[in-house]
């Protein structure tokens, strides 16, 4: 009898442990195994998918009002000259390692990000003309800028400028990416590079921004795994290996959304659309008529239908429609019109004199060098576009190159056409591509007027005035026919219908994991 009592007591003790709800563990499929995941150092979007839940930021972007709301900072002030930002911090916040969050922690983080030793790939550049930070008192910090920089709040709302525990940063040094400590709703529990990353619920979390629906996280553990090969993604979802999977291939999306067990959560990603840069510095694309002919001769709708199964919008200008300051006037500018294209080419002096189907001028055939990266459906897009251009008498030599090769080709300007896309919620992203001194000036543009607009817009505090300038830039880019926009990026997230509440932040990439729940089925 006594033995039974002990056994019974044991069972009673064990049962609650076993009775963990099935909703307690979520597996989330990522599409790239990043080489580094320190948000202050590395630049990939994938790192932010888990880490947005590990870190809090000083401010947050609220999509419903398109404004910034309190985060770690409960309020802030900007000086009239736009050079000094003062943040008043919340006083009830502790890092996952138990250390309280204060102004000194913010200063420590900003110092780390801007130090040359760290070689930050993204965070440093997001801070723009950052000069230094000053601790005013325990819970007040001032950021000083070298010149006005309106995108600062946008930058401070992103995980790349998330606040990490100074103690952990000091303790782990270069290994910090394996032992990250923040203040967010999830604790960084375990990371095996290339294999998995485990987050555990932070039970003490009570300082979330108003854009979060829940006070604390609902799912006990979230495990992230990597599915680099697109063909493996929907099978992993359908076999139950994962409950959420990013970047489902468009051809699998319709099947999943028609099923009773799965759904597609599309997330529009703001930034510059996927577009082909036309090198205006290299003949024959130095002729605006030829560039406009290529735009008229590209049936973008057909490309989006065939390759993206109409899951993402056709792009008409350099900014994705989901971006602040998008100028809708670009939509009517270059409707598909092969006759118009042929006409423009004739006017530019290109006609098919030898009857081989390819236009020529002074004995030179009209052949363009097209370089493509292997990801993002670029080879498929390139093949379709090349076939469409062939119909208007333009031949292409296509080559698929690696990303480093593409970067060197584009910076040397030996291309005629090369595609690119980049995400970002502030229209200042245009400056990276269309300023004459820009790193990604792959169109070889040199337009002093546009340079001025782009510089001015980054400094203006007034949103209306900024938007007006960016609108001019977008129209100018299209009038000058610098790019062939193809599509806006939409991340097709496949989910099991057990998953509820999956929403994405203003960047389009990063889920608000605190609000995700997993239902029993």
């Amino acid at each position, binding site marked *: 009898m006594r033995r039974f009592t002990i056994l019974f007591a044991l069972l009673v003790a064990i049962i609650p442990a076993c009775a963990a709800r099935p909703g307690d563990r979520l597996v989330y499929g990522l599409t790239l195994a990043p080489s580094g995941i320190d948000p202050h150092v590395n630049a990939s979007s994938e790192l932010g998918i888990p880490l947005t839940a590990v870190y809090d930021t000083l401010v947050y972007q609220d999509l419903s009002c398109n404004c910034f709301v309190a985060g770690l900072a409960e309020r802030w002030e900007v000086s009239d000259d736009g050079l000094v930002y003062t943040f008043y911090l919340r006083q009830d916040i502790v890092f996952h390692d138990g250390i309280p969050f204060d102004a000194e922690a913010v200063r420590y983080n900003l110092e780390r990000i801007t130090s040359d030793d760290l070689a930050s790939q993204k965070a440093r550049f997001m801070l723009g003309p950052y000069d230094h930070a000053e601790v005013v008192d325990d819970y007040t910090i001032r950021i000083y800028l070298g010149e006005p920089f309106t995108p600062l709040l946008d930058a401070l709302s992103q995980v790349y400028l998330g606040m990490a525990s100074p103690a952990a940063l000091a303790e782990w040094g270069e290994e910090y990416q394996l032992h990250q400590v923040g203040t967010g709703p999830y604790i960084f529990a375990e990371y095996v590079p290339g294999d998995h990353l485990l987050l555990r619920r932070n039970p003490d979390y009570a300082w979330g921004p108003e854009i979060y629906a829940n006070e604390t996280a609902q799912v006990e553990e979230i495990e992230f795994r990597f599915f680099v090969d697109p*063909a493996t993604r929907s099978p992993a979802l359908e076999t139950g290996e994962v409950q959420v999977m990013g970047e489902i291939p468009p*051809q*699998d999306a319709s099947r999943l959304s028609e099923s009773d067990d799965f759904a597609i959560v599309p997330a529009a990603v703001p930034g510059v659309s996927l577009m082909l840069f036309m090198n205006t510095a290299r003949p024959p694309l130095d002729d605006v008529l030829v560039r406009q002919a290529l735009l008229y001769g590209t049936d973008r709708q057909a*490309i989006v239908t065939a390759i993206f199964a109409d899951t993402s919008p056709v792009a008409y200008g350099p900014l994705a429609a989901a971006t602040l300051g998008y100028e809708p006037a670009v939509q009517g500018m270059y409707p598909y019109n092969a006759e118009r294209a042929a006409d423009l080419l004739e006017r530019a002096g290109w006609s098919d004199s030898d009857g081989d189907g390819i236009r020529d001028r002074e004995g030179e055939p009209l052949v363009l060098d097209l370089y493509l990266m292997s990801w993002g459906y670029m080879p498929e897009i390139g093949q379709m576009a090349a076939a469409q251009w062939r119909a208007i008498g333009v031949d292409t030599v296509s080559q*698929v190159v690696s990303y480093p090769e593409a970067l060197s080709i584009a910076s040397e300007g030996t291309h005629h056409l090369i595609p690119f896309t980049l995400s970002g919620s502030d229209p200042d992203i245009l400056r990276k591509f269309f300023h004459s001194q820009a790193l990604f000036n792959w169109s070889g543009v040199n337009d002093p007027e546009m340079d001025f607009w782009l510089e001015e817009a980054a400094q203006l505090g007034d949103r209306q005035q900024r938007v007006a300038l960016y609108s001019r830039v977008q129209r100018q880019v299209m009038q000058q026919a610098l790019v062939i926009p193809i599509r806006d990026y939409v991340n097709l997230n496949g989910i099991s219908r057990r998953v509820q509440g999956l929403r994405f932040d203003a960047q389009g990439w990063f889920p608000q994991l605190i609000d995700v729940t997993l239902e029993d089925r």
Partner: protein
Amino acid sequence: MIEWVAPRRRPLPRQPITLLALAWLLLVVAVAALAPLLPVADPQAIDSLHALQPPGIAHVLGTDFLGRDILARLLWGGRWTLQMGGLALSLAIGIGLPLGLAAGSGGGRVDALLMRLVDAWLAFPPLLLAMAVVAILGTGLVSVAVAVGIAAVPPYARVARSIAREVRAQPYIEAAWSIGCSPWRIAVRHVFPNALPSLVAFTATQLGWLLLNGAALNFLGLGAPLGVPEWGSMLAEGRGYLRAAPWASGFPGLALTLTVLAANLVGDGLQEALG
């Protein structure tokens, strides 16, 4: 006392499977050679309105994700694959055979030196070596053929050497020596004809591997230019559509499998018939 045991030979006409395999290989070669004359669609014509059509009357083997005719691409694709295979094979034979025969007939230091070289060569997995060569030479038919061919040299040299050594140890070679035949005459009249059957059989088997390695490089995007039909790249392009359109990668996969299998069967059959 030397006992001569004749190996069991089976002439080709008595090997129906080998004949079938041979017929398939000849068919593939013929179709590849005649592809421009065959009444099939343009393999590169994009028709996105008819993408991912199942096999039917308009498109016998269906269409891929850009609406291109799979049958036409298959026929034209074999052309690329076989040209590459033939070129690679010539290269492997051209380097491997003299290397192996020299080592095998020379013996001693020459043998040791050449075989250590081949050992070092063999230490690289063939596909990895081929990828490294493509990385240096760039993509395209010739560089893929060179890459695959160079990677196939060591097994060739090894086999040629062992066959040469085996033949060299035969009593009739000793007899030829003793009646005063010149080394040249021995090599040409005695060693080579007797080594030939084994080499032919090995060559047929090797062809299968070369085709497979070439297709693997194309599958990885390191071969034919974008859009040019090739079995390996067709396989790769169709892979994302396995659920929606299994024919897009199924047929090129089948063609590749059958051809490699046929090459191996022909190799085995020849070994039996000639060995």
